[in-house]
């Protein structure tokens, strides 16, 4: 236990946030890629690539911004649970629409 640190400079703060800054940059790159693929230069494969990019961005936020890997195992399990359930909801409903 040390005494409260004196307030650092902005650079000092950012030095403690290397992971967050990298995640931030990655998210902006992902956003840029989605805009390019979807708006600027759409192609037939765009949708699939965009969904993959979206999944990567979601993973980035969960892993680095929300620090899921540092959580206890049950919390980690919990954070994945929601997405699994969304997959069930969407997947099984669309199954109906595709087999009509």
């Amino acid at each position: 236990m040390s005494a409260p640190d004196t307030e650092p400079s902005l650079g000092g703060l950012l030095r403690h946030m290397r992971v967050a800054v990298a995640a931030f940059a990655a998210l902006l790159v992902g956003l840029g890629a989605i805009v390019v693929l979807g708006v600027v230069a759409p192609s037939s494969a765009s949708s699939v690539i965009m969904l993959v990019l979206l999944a990567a961005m979601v993973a980035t936020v969960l892993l680095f911004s929300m620090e899921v890997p540092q959580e206890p195992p049950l919390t980690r399990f919990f954070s994945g649970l929601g997405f699994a359930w969304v997959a069930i909801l969407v997947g099984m409903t669309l199954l109906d629409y595709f087999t009509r």
Partner: protein
Amino acid sequence: MTTARRMSASVAAPEGVGIEVAEQFADATQQRHAAQLGMWAWLLTELLLFAGLFLCAAVLHVTHPAAVARAARHLKVWIGAANTAVLICSSLTMTGAITASRHGWRRWMLRCLLATAALGTLFLLLKGFEYYQDYLEHMTPFLDRPYALAGEPATRLYIDLYFLTTALHALHLTTGVAILLGMTWIARKPRFLHRHQNWIEVYGLYWHFIDLIWIMVFTLIYVVPR
């Protein structure tokens, strides 16, 4: 446990940073764990809530692809993209606030919290501007006024879904900014970090998640169907 472990990984928890243990908890570790898990449970419900809307949009996309594409092309994708960037920035400032709070850097924490609130407000202003543009372009089918794509009924449903989804998200963000400002007001007191450091941690999860939801809204509603 969570934060304690996190801190030991980065820095030793400085003195004067901690939480006040509520009566029903045995110790601070248990309380932190409970608070984090509680927020995660809440976020789970938020995800499923929005998933219902995404599902409706997906079904419409499957059944009426052409109409959905036409409707999606009327959305202000550049404002949406700018807003996504704004929220990604706000996520960074929120992480800044969390980092500062862990080190007991109260001034940085307050600055970051205010920056986050400002970015959130900027998002809402842009959103309002976008709605106003929609209004001017007669893209508000639920209002009693002429609708630009009146001949194509299924587009109307997509636009309605867009409004419902973004309005629900904006409602979350408005609540978020209000809580953030209230918390900042309380956090200005010097002893705040002695007692409630985990408020910042827990709130940060919420903010990141609202950001996450928006990234999904932008991709799934604005861009993919185009």
